[in-house]
């Protein structure tokens, strides 16, 4: 380990921090509160996916604009998407930084296509698992969205791990859907996919903490760094490695570690 810390010492430290930060007290300002407004699996995955898609910038604005998207979908996202006509969708307008009405409308159309082809979003991800991660599944989701007749500008809103992206937001969404515990933060509504193959949502803060602890050496926050970090975290907990996202996040945000 680069930091000179023992692996067991790092694991104990991260376990301790996981118990502190996997707590609803710490997520009151987190975008995950949007899917927590719903109880139906498909509503949770749609609201989670759309919220995660715009989860960059100020948290307050992310939450405000996510709530606005839900309002536009009559606070019944699945029902709206399935039953809406192209004309209905065309009336909707949203702007969150570079995510605008063109992107939003296209996302809704593709989600409608997705629910016509698959049982739910989980099925698309599940059927495309390769190796021991969800990188190919994310790539397939992206391919599904951008198969033909798509606005070029919208492609930037779904990253592709196979092109080297860390895919922070979609990995965060996958953590929300797949991780299951009794702490009330993550949903665990996707039961076919094992939490053991999740990837850690890597950003500048979690990357900094991971490097300081010596569990990540690569300097860039890209897909190679995600794989390296996943390998470290899977040694600490092979069944649930991404639980340590809470530890890395809390140490960075609340402790200035």
């Amino acid at each position: 380990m680069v930091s000179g810390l023992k692996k067991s010492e790092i694991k104990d430290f991260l376990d301790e921090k996981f118990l502190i930060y996997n707590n609803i007290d710490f997520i009151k300002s987190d975008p995950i509160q949007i899917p927590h407004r719903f109880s139906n699996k498909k509503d949770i995955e749609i609201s989670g996916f759309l919220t995660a898609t715009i989860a960059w910038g100020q948290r307050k604005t992310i939450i405000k604009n996510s709530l606005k998207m839900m309002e536009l979908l009559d606070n019944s996202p699945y029902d709206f998407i399935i039953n809406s006509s192209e004309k209905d969708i065309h009336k909707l307008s949203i702007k969150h930084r570079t995510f605008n009405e063109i992107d939003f409308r296209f996302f809704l159309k593709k989600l409608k296509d997705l629910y016509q082809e698959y049982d739910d979003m989980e099925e698309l991800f599940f059927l495309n698992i390769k190796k021991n991660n969800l990188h190919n599944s994310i790539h397939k989701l992206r391919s599904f969205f951008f198969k033909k007749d798509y606005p070029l500008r919208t492609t930037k809103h779904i990253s592709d791990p196979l092109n080297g992206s860390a895919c922070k937001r979609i990995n965060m969404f996958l953590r929300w859907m797949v991780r299951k515990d009794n702490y009330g933060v993550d949903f665990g509504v996707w039961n076919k996919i094992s939490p053991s193959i999740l990837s850690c949502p890597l950003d500048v803060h979690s990357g900094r903490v991971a490097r300081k602890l010596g569990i990540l050496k690569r300097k860039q926050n890209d897909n190679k760094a995600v794989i390296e970090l996943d390998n470290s975290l899977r040694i600490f907990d092979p069944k649930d490695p991404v639980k340590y996202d809470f530890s890395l996040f809390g140490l960075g945000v609340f402790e200035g570690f």
Partner: protein
Amino acid sequence: MISVNNISKTFNNKMVLDNISLDVKEGEIISIVGPSGAGKTTLLNIISTLDKPDKNIDSKVYINGIDVLSLNDIKLSKFRNTQIGFIFQFHELLPEFSAIENVLIPAIIKGVNKRKSRAKALELLDSLGLADVVDQFPSQLSGGEQQRVAVARALINDPKIIFADEPSGNLDTKSSKLLHELFFKLREKHKITFVIVTHNKELSNMTDRKLNLIDGKWS
């Protein structure tokens, strides 16, 4: 309580601190003054374990008898959470959390029972004249109120030492005076040691000792 020996710090080949030593007794309130760029904040950051000095076998920082330069990042993190309180000019309250939640965060991190911590946080906020604003968010508080919330947050884990960097730098005269008086009351009540970096002459003149730092050396 604090013993600092032969500390130097170099940034980009420029020596910011030049072989500084310092001893602070328990319950003492000292101020570090000097012109901007003299190295005051760098020194405070090193004494308070937020930064490390240049590597030198003779450099030592002892807090409460603990050689803090020998601690690794994990042990340092625990040490900071349990032994030290920080007050900064820009109080760094979390905007999405209410006054009482901001005060409670260090206690939650320390793992103290939530009900007990809440009672203590309420008591602290009350003693600082903030009983009416416990559930308000930082943006709803005045600068003086925000800074007192930051003081309550610094006190929640019963630190033996508080490090303060320009604690009244962002406050009007009246709020500054109240804050300065508060430090002395806290010393009387809890025997807390204070190391304060300040440009405020009124505050530095009140402290037990005023140390003048110029170009990285005591003058």
